């Protein structure tokens, strides 16, 4: 994982309270990490603040896995 992805994984691992190394692109945010609606709100806010990006409502609705977030960040 490069430095860019590392920042994304740091945000996710801190929120989900899991080790960064355990996060894989196919890891599901809800089923595997227990990120429910209130936590999803924090995840989006934390991602925007930490990575200095803006995530639209349409983009947010499509985020289901760790890989989806990495892809989104790469596209910014």
């Amino acid at each position: 994982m490069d430095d860019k992805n590392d920042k994304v994984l740091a945000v996710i691992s801190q929120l989900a309270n899991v080790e960064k190394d355990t996060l894989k692109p196919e890891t599901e945010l809800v089923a595997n990490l227990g990120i429910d609606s209130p936590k999803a709100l924090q995840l989006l806010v934390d991602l925007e603040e930490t990575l200095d990006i803006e995530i639209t409502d349409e983009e947010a609705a499509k985020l289901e896995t760790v890989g989806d977030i990495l892809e989104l960040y790469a596209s910014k």
Partner: protein
Amino acid sequence: MGDESKTPFKLRFYSFLLHCLARALIATCRTRIVAGEKRLDRIAENPVIFAAWHNRIFYFSVFAPKYLISRGIKLAMMSSLSKDGAIGASLGQRSGLRVVRGSAHRGGTEGFRRFYRVMKKESCSTILLPDGSRGPIYKAKMGVAMLAKLTGAPVVPISYQAERCWRVRSWDRLIIPKPFSRIAVVVGDDLAIERDADDEALERGRARIESALNEAGARAAEAIKGKN
């Protein structure tokens, strides 16, 4: 977001009727803020999250413009994406509130994100109904606590009791004060939730919001009975 012109005419008409009815009815009542009135004077500069139980919304739709917006408080409310929500949104706009559409069920995260932006970028206070939009009654959901944590804005619990009232047969047993009733309003103490709160601290914050709202309601009821 909150565009009145996109609301169908029938819904706008219903909201107009409801708005007039609420204002006319509440105008006959005597309101007394029995606790926390001075707190309201310091809110315009520092946004807060007002929290009220869902069944208090009829009265607070009149209370908000008269006692909050008149103090220079910029106030936003969330309204669900349903037809009922459209009426609520239209009613909120008539009362001078900024309306954010969304709910905990459909587009909940979206609605709360919009709320978050409104609070952070526009220094807008918000009024949220922690047991809405479908209950169970008097059970606070996590959204309010999470919004407090992320924005750093304190939660201000607010409740009231009417001397005499009707109770609608809805899930929340909506309260409509009867004409010429005395109404006691209680503004509770600030509840802050730290930005680094973990799951347990967040749950404690949610529970504190729930009990503070029940305590505010009980205190208002005591004031109506003349104990306070």
